[in-house]
């Protein structure tokens, strides 16, 4: 009896040791990949990130680290991400509320919408870029020009602009927000909704006052994920708003803008002297990473604040 138990324990311990080791190894692998990438970038780029670099423009020489700055890139990327968040959150949240709170889960329409959302998530980002160019820039922008400025040959709306780039990114990140919101809505116990309805609240009152406040942290998770994705995507903005070079900062949403990730692509492909541009490339990527981290961090802080408020209330 004793020996069998001993034997079993031994066997279990060996298996356990093996799988613990395997999962540990996988973790170490992932961490070291991250460390090599981030370490390499910061090692080569950080020395060139100075106050002058961050607050300077690209007008003197955009391929020389001693003369070029990244301010228009930071402004453009931040504005793009913020506009995108403003567009994607309401649409995504309303869609998720419809799917979880109103639609019958078995109906054909619901299944169709869910399928569409899943397919949207699988579309390559360059397709979104072309869609944005065709739909937002030429169709919506062109129609607005024809309607608002019928006697003016030069485009006001129908040109690549920060507005269209943000809208294109919003379409691309819509599934992320929908799925995250749906998950947080489904995690809310049905008893809460029943409690509110049984007190004579309407469905809409229940959703606005009881359900959505509870789902807010989940909605913000969706926002964080979409910000992370939108800040680094180049393909969707390539034809819808990002510019190679601009002499001034965008003044309105209908102006084109300079974007950090797109600029990284330009620096790595368009320079005549790649060795001279290399430090600038590293420094620009450092700024891109820091900006993405910062935008994410702000959203995480807001979410943490809300969670704390929900827990303590006082």
């Amino acid at each position, binding site marked *: 009896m004793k020996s069998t138990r001993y034997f079993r324990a031994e066997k279990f311990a060996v298996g356990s040791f093996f799988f613990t080791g395997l999962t540990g190894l996988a973790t170490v692998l992932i961490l070291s990949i991250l460390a090599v990438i981030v370490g390499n970038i910061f090692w080569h780029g950080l020395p060139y990130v100075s106050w002058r670099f961050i607050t300077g423009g690209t007008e003197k020489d955009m391929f020389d680290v001693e003369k070029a700055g990244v301010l228009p890139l930071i402004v453009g990327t931040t504005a793009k991400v913020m506009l995108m968040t403003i567009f994607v959150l309401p649409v995504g949240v309303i869609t998720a509320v419809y799917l979880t709170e109103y639609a019958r889960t078995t109906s054909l329409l619901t299944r169709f919408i869910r399928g569409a959302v899943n397919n949207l998530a699988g579309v390559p980002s360059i397709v979104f870029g072309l869609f944005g160019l065709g739909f937002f820039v030429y169709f919506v922008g062109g129609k607005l020009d024809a309607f608002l400025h019928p006697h003016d040959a030069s485009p006001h709306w129908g040109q690549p602009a920060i507005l269209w780039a943000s809208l294109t990114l919003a379409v691309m990140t819509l599934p992320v927000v929908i799925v995250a919101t749906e998950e947080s809505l489904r995690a809310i116990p049905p008893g*809460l909704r029943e*409690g509110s309805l049984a*007190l004579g609240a309407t469905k809409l009152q229940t959703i606005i006052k009881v359900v959505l406040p509870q789902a807010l942290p989940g909605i913000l998770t969706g926002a964080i994920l979409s910000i992370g994705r939108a800040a680094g995507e180049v393909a969707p903005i390539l034809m819808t708003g990002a510019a190679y070079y601009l002499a001034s900062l965008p003044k309105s949403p209908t102006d084109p803008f300079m974007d950090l990730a797109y600029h990284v692509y330009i620096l790595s492909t368009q320079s005549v002297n790649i060795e001279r541009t290399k430090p600038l490339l590293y420094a620009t990527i450092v700024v891109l990473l820091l900006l993405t981290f910062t935008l994410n961090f702000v959203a995480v802080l807001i979410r943490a604040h809300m969670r704390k408020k929900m827990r303590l209330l006082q």
Partner: protein
Amino acid sequence: MQIMSEIIVPKLNPITADLGPSPKNNGADSLIETESLSLSYGSNKALKNVSFKIRERVVTAFIGPSGCGKTTLLRCFNRMNDLIDNVRIEGLVKIANHDIYSPNVDVIELRKRVGMVFQRSNPFPKSIFENIAYAVRLHGMKKKSELEAVVEQSLRRAALWDEVKDRMHSTALGLSGGQQQRLCIARAIAIKPEIILMDEPASALDPIATSRVEELILELRKEFTIVIVTHNMQQAARISDYTAFFYLGELIEYDTTTKIFTSPGHKKTEDYVTGRFG
């Protein structure tokens, strides 16, 4: 007498027909009435041809084994079954002599008059104050001083005021299970319903919390008509005036609680209340 004048007929019509099997009912004060009520979820029949009347300002207990339809019946009285897909209801449910399933009934108004307390306490993740003020505010009271008065009065009537008066603005989720359930009762009575439906309100509570909820129910029966579903036979015996025994979706026996527990008229009732099955 408080009657449901706004949604429903201006005056309670005296019901002359006798109140089912109970010899003591003079029939003048029945508030809830069902006539051959059947309900099915898809192809599954949960209630079969239930006809009976519930009197005003008494505690009526529904007992019976799991799946006998007692909770389903309770949820017919405030139309909570409307939320479930594929529910088919036949027959009549009348409250104060008015068909609550007729198309011109405002469900919101109905639920204001027929409150509900659930099996698992479900306070909102808001402050204690906001939990009670929530529905009061939705139904039109906006002034802070008035709201505070209603909140205090409701908590006092739910025998919770002394325990929570110093932490009105901290989260309701910090209360114990029993306190949470009494908060849910306070929340229900804050909008002044006439009927309170209770779906096993004490089944998740410890014995002390249970007895406090029972004391509360006995206190509330002076003002409200209470219908309570319970699995606990002693509880039904302690707090109810009338008891209805259900089995497989049918109303087997309905009588005064004393009669049901001392000399039941049906073999099944006797077997159930004496613990031979269930």
